[in-house]
């Protein structure tokens, strides 16, 4: 089982490495969206500092949404998804492999870049660290829940927007506590409660989302 997961992971990482452009594009999208807000709202530092946690988190959500199109759809089109369903290994394990590789390629870069962008908004140092940690806890949840949405809309026309419609409402708790953690740090109150809750969401998603995703994949392939 672990061997199968490792091979799925290895394959997806290899593919991402060979199509580096796709990965970088999503990252550039993140940077552009974040930069749009000051342009729209005005460069007044206090206002930007207040907005920063929300802006960075929403941009991370949107970047994650975009990257979901690459999660199952290519496999569905070339027949490799079918083979995964026939693999004789529990589908849940293979799904975890796909989700982990998706996070490593799409989520982790956001975690690393976001603190740099936070500097553009004049966030203090401890807030930047909290931003990184909150995204570190939150982006895997985005990958997990997003995977369920991507699986449900496989091969459906208009699936790009439909996935966003289905999944963004489900992201709201993560957004609230993720951005809230940074906001709390800036305000001086601690972010421990937020981290605990984010950790709780992560644990819950890790347990439930792969099952829902596997079920959705089987339904989509019928």
């Amino acid at each position: 089982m672990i061997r199968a997961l490792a091979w799925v992971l290895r394959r997806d990482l290899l593919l991402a490495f060979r199509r580096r452009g796709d990965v970088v594009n999503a990252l550039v999208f993140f940077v552009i969206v974040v930069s749009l807000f000051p342009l729209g709202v005005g460069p007044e530092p206090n206002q930007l500092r207040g907005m920063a946690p929300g802006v960075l988190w929403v941009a991370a959500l949107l970047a994650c949404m975009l990257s979901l199109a690459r999660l199952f759809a290519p496999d569905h089109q070339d027949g490799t998804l079918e083979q995964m369903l026939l693999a004789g290994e529990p589908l849940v394990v293979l799904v975890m492999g796909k989700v982990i590789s998706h996070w490593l390629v799409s989520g982790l870069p956001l975690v690393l870049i976001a603190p740099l962008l936070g500097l553009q908004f004049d966030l203090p140092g401890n807030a930047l660290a909290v931003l990184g940690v909150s995204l570190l806890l939150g982006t895997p949840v985005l990958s997990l829940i997003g995977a369920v949405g991507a699986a449900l809309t496989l091969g459906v026309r208009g699936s790009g927007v439909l996935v966003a419609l289905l999944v963004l409402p489900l992201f709201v708790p993560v957004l609230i506590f993720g951005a809230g953690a940074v906001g709390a740090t800036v305000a001086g109150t601690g972010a421990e409660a937020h981290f605990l809750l984010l950790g709780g969401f992560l644990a819950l998603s890790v347990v439930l989302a792969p099952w829902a995703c596997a079920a959705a994949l089987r339904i989509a392939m019928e």
Partner: protein
Amino acid sequence: MAMSKSRRFSLYYFSSPQSFYPLAGALQPWFAALAVLLCAVGLYIGFFVAPTDATQGEVYRIIFIHVAASWMSMFLYLVMGFWSGVGLVLNTRLSSMVATALAPTGALFTFLALWTGSFWGKPTWGTWWAWDARMTSELILLFLYIGFMALQSAIDDQRRADKAGAVLALVGTINIPIIYFSVKWWSTLHQGASVSLTSAPTMAKTMLLGMLIMALGFWMYSIAATLARVRCVILERERHTDWVEAEIGRQTT
């Protein structure tokens, strides 16, 4: 011996669309009548009998519709999740049809809750929209309903649409308490002492009674509307069977 088997009455008899169709048709007018009655009583209590509120005057009366609608919107989502889950696990067609029929009514009540809440908010707080916990939760619930309906209409294959909708509805059902809790926390944090639509008037007994009757009326309406809609869904999905063709023939002559 040409004797027919004795018919054992069993609830399972009604789990086929063909048997449920006439049952739904027979029950529907009764629920509709109950709905009209209860809503009329509820509105009467709300608008004429219940005392004027000390702080908010007459405006608060819209709460009778608003709270009842928001209770129904949450309740219907859970019912929808339940029936689509049954359809997924037991592979029954009728349960999925009921879930599909419930969604528009649920969305309607969510919208009604938002609309009446907005009407209440304008005179009370001066804005058409205040980001308080209930309104924001209702908004997200509306998105969940719309997502369910959008997913089902986007998938061409009927069985896949039913099952995919079921997975989504179940995921949504698990999320609803989490979303509600998160939004409530977010709202109290950002607004300090929150002026919430639930906390405002201290409930006099008549007010509570009025709201409950209103909620019951809405419940009866939901059942009536869902039964009517399920009949349409059944006719549409089973249109290739003999009994539906006979039924349509009968209805159009």
